[in-house]
């Protein structure tokens, strides 16, 4: 799993671009890495999934955790580039609405 983080202080956005397969193996390390970037306050976190070829319930669980944690700290989470093959997992679990995907 490769992760690239860009912080834009002006617009108060943090963009994490993930590259790899989001299963339980990758989620372990990733969850704490992304958690560390969460600032308190009105920040927008964008998780770019363009290069995530696989996502399962472990990946979903991490995204749910991050969204809740970011909201708790006053910010918001947006998912970017949800490809068709992983969109399926969001709609099956009715999490597309939770993440504002429809």
């Amino acid at each position: 799993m490769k992760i690239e983080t860009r912080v834009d202080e002006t617009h108060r956005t943090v963009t994490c671009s993930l590259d790899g397969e989001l299963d339980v193996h990758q989620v372990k390390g990733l969850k704490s890495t992304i958690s560390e970037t969460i600032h308190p306050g009105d920040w927008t976190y964008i998780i770019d999934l363009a290069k995530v070829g696989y996502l399962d319930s472990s990946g979903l669980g991490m995204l749910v955790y991050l969204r809740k944690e970011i909201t708790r700290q006053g910010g918001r989470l947006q998912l970017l580039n949800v490809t068709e093959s992983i969109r399926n997992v969001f709609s099956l679990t009715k999490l597309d609405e939770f993440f504002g995907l429809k």
Partner: protein
Amino acid sequence: MPTPIPGPLSGARPRCTRLDMELTGHPRSLSLVRRILCTCAPPQTLSHQVLNDIQLAVTEACTNVIKHAFHHDPTRKYGLQVQVTADRYLIQVIYHDPTFDPATIPVPDLQHAREGGLGVFLIRHIMDEVEYLVDAATGTVTLRMVKFLAAPDDPGGQGENRNPSR
């Protein structure tokens, strides 16, 4: 925003028709499992989307073995069996867990987003047959999953349980 289901897998022919392997409980084995499922696919009758779904269901099954039965002990081992025919994809995950009772697996409440509890739900949704066979004498659990595949000339969906909204 559904896009069309991509066509059948490229690659001329099925390559692996039956497989029986023993894997360690290291979560690294999961991506290996997904790669191997690709090579077992009968390309004429399997769309990318259905293969994705099968990879998802099997990964969820193996993840549960690693988490709940092995408690993340990477030295423990489990079995994976795959048998592919033109109309059927059979997968069995076999492991030792003398305390497991499949009847206790809760059905998730999809109204509230939670961080867990979706794995078995996804397996049941994707696969056409899902059965936990528990051998109480030995403590061996066999999770048996079947996906029916559409015949190559069937213009309809893939398998009986196909969600038409996808």
